[in-house]
């Protein structure tokens, strides 16, 4: 990616995986994590997102903006791209949540154990 990355965010990022894709969410944007059986729901921007796995928390990431070539062939939205442990990941923009993480059928009644991004219950 040729554009320069944005300054490092020292608040850290929660890394999650869905359908094999690694996503990063700024810790400050995470409102809670709810376990649903073997999977999780992540509350961000007042909405629950479906995730398969909580990978961990990283203290910082350099975030590159989405480039024109990527936007041309990937119609979803994101806050940028990054790399962690040699794996590329997509940064969630809490103001514009990606369709790829949204839950097709998200009943409000089936919430389980809740924790925030740092594991507090």
């Amino acid at each position: 990616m040729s554009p320069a990355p944005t300054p490092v965010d020292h608040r850290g990022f929660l890394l999650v995986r869905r359908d094999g894709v690694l996503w990063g969410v700024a810790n400050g944007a995470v409102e809670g994590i709810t376990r649903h059986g073997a999977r999780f729901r992540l509350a961000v921007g007042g909405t629950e997102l479906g995730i398969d796995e909580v990978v961990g928390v990283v203290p910082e990431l350099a975030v590159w903006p989405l480039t024109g070539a990527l936007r041309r062939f990937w119609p979803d939205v994101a806050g940028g791209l990054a790399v962690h442990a040699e794996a590329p990941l997509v940064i969630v923009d809490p103001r514009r949540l990606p369709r790829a993480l949204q839950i097709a059928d998200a009943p409000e009644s089936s919430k389980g154990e809740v924790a925030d991004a740092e594991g507090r219950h």
Partner: protein
Amino acid sequence: MAEPLAESGRRRGLSAGSHLLVQAGEYVCALPLRSVRRVLRALTVHPLPGATDELKGLAEFGGEPLPVLELARLVGAPPGAKPAYPVTIVVWVGPQDARELVGLAADAALEVSEVQLTSVVAGNGGFILGEALVDGEVVRVVNLEALGGDL
């Protein structure tokens, strides 16, 4: 560290018409050598949900995220035999003042050859600038500038 192809090409006296020929499905495509940054054994690609067929996914290159496009899909090439040594060609795309890096997944890097742009005919106005004859074989000259930037 390997030397960028375009820089080594300048030192060897390659001209602005120098192109890297690559196999993409049943097509041979020509990429302007000045836009080629690196040729690598095929990078590990992580598919993105909802992407079009042209986008294979994201890879890591030099510590940075890199979108990887399927060259055969971009140029509409019929699929070829399963490649023995697939490659990722890291290229600059888009206009000069807003260029960006992408990876092009191809079946093989073949050779560097001269393609005179005055001999290129029948462009489709999209990612194929046109066709030219190189050593008696038709090659598709790829318009990398058209790949970048906003729609």
